[in-house]
């Protein structure tokens, strides 16, 4: 019974994620208006024409929410993708070779951790000019240490296992061993962490937007909408409630989907 219930939750999560992906891909046909066009009186309440109302510049909230899905999804998925590449490599190296390499890499990861995302975001925005790419890089840098850490643990354990030992005894090259034998066995927690990180990335981007370092126009992100929308609470609650709810829904969706993945891939992983 527990299995069935947990499956339901995971299925819901997956449904949410898939809907988001669909909305993100088909934003143009789905969205009733151009998200940046000022189509009416500012702060208008929901109406037939504008189902979620208009924001402080008279832009259609529903359209912005739809395009925001695309941006939030792109930012979180791409940044986690980048951090997977970096984090898994570093985690593999640290766990497989141990010793000095492990120490150095893990301290470097600690370092990356301490650099608050906004410091990096400001620096990048300043140096390279403001853009979507900078937000992605900033979020990727902040997420990499977690991925590296999650990779390293199981790698350390697997390293001592029999089939790795036998592979090495047989003279297999390190890299081959790592990729052929080690990685598939530690893939499960990494994949699960990736979904959780995507959820986190959405929240990190929201935080950056609050500090004014999130995505730039003409892009819209939910974090951006929430950050500016909160100034109009009580005047037009929808401006903060809708993007806020969207963020929460997406974050929960990815988390539940991640839980489901964990159950499917390896039920023993629940303890983390």
């Amino acid at each position: 019974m527990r299995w069935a219930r947990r499956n339901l939750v995971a299925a819901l999560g997956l449904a949410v994620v898939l809907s988001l992906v669909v909305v993100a891909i088909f934003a143009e046909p789905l969205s009733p208006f151009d998200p940046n066009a000022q189509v009416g009186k500012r702060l208008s309440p929901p109406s037939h024409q504008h189902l979620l109302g208009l924001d402080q510049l008279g832009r259609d909230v529903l359209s912005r929410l739809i395009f925001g899905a695309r941006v939030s999804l792109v930012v979180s998925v791409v940044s986690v993708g980048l951090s997977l590449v970096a984090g898994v490599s570093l985690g593999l190296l640290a766990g497989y070779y141990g010793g000095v390499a492990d120490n150095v890499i893990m301290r470097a990861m600690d370092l990356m951790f301490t650099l608050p995302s906004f410091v990096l975001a400001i620096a990048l925005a300043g140096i390279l000019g403001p853009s979507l790419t900078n937000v992605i890089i900033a979020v990727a840098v902040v997420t990499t240490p977690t991925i590296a850490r999650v990779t390293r643990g199981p790698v350390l354990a697997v390293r001592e296992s029999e089939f790795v030992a036998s592979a090495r005894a047989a003279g297999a090259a390190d890299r081959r061993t790592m990729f052929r034998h080690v990685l598939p066995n530690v893939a499960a927690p990494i994949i699960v962490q990736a979904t959780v990180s995507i959820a986190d990335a959405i929240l990190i981007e929201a935080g950056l937007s609050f500090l004014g370092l999130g995505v730039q126009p003409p892009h819209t992100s939910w974090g951006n909408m929430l950050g500016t929308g909160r100034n109009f609470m009580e005047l037009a609650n929808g401006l903060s409630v809708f993007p806020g709810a969207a963020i929460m829904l997406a974050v929960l969706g990815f988390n539940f989907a991640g839980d489901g993945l964990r159950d499917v891939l390896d039920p023993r992983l629940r303890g983390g």
Partner: protein
Amino acid sequence: MKAFLVRRLLSTLAAAFALSVLIFLLIRLVPGDAVTMWVGQEGTMTPEVRATLRKMFGLTDPLPVQYLHWLADVLRGDFGYSFRSRLPVTQLLRRSLPITIELAALAMLTSAVVALPLGIVSAVKRNTPTDVLARLVGLVGLSMPSFWLAVLLILISATYFRWLPSLIYVSPWKDLAANLGQMMMPAFSLGLPLMAVVMRMTRSTMLEVLSQDYVRTARAKGVAERVMLARHALRNAFIPIITIMGIQLGRLLGGAVIVEQIFGMPGVGTELVSAIGERDYPMVQATVLMMGLLFILVQFLVDLCYGYLDPRIHYG
């Protein structure tokens, strides 16, 4: 054990050094410098005066020289003077760092104190209304952006209860009650996401432990529930929980910046944000370095806890 400590110390120093170089370069690469901010929008400066100021800030030396000067001062315990306020950085940090540390510590404490029992109760009384409520709170904490939560808390408190804690910072040494009253909402906003994660983790670990064979055996033998929970279940749950807390600390420090801004708290987060905005290099470098060292210290303590809790892990 000693070898472990020495290795850790060395790698900590290496990390601190690398961090200082990184932030030194990053902040100087950002367009605009302290002199630009000094002139502001409405001032005018002759090139000579600009050169004089740049010299005063040490900005005319080549980068490696600037860095070495700074490093030499730091090793003597002198973090320099803020470019803008001309106050000593150590004095400013001494005032602001404890505030952020207190905030982060309270956030972690409240989240642990709330999450652990809630997680356990949730697991033991699975699917009861208590469980459902706890999980709901957990879901909100997991998914709500912390700045939104903070803003909602403030507005609800002010609008419906006509109450706000003192906006001006009160030190715990002067008035502990007032200080805790101030810290209540910020610590809660900051700690809720962490609480949610820890609660879920506790709950799932407990659920797993409760289904283990030895638990069933113990139950069959009649060992007191509580004793069994405490001895076996919690022990096993602690490792992943501490891992999580260690991992989340970085996020906590970052989140503290946002929470401090909203509640107007003069912590290190607010100081860092305004120092970056003002291109106050000594301030930025010292603050990031301090935060980094703090973080590494906590990680070290976390690793020590591992060693204590899990006999399989040993540091040689």
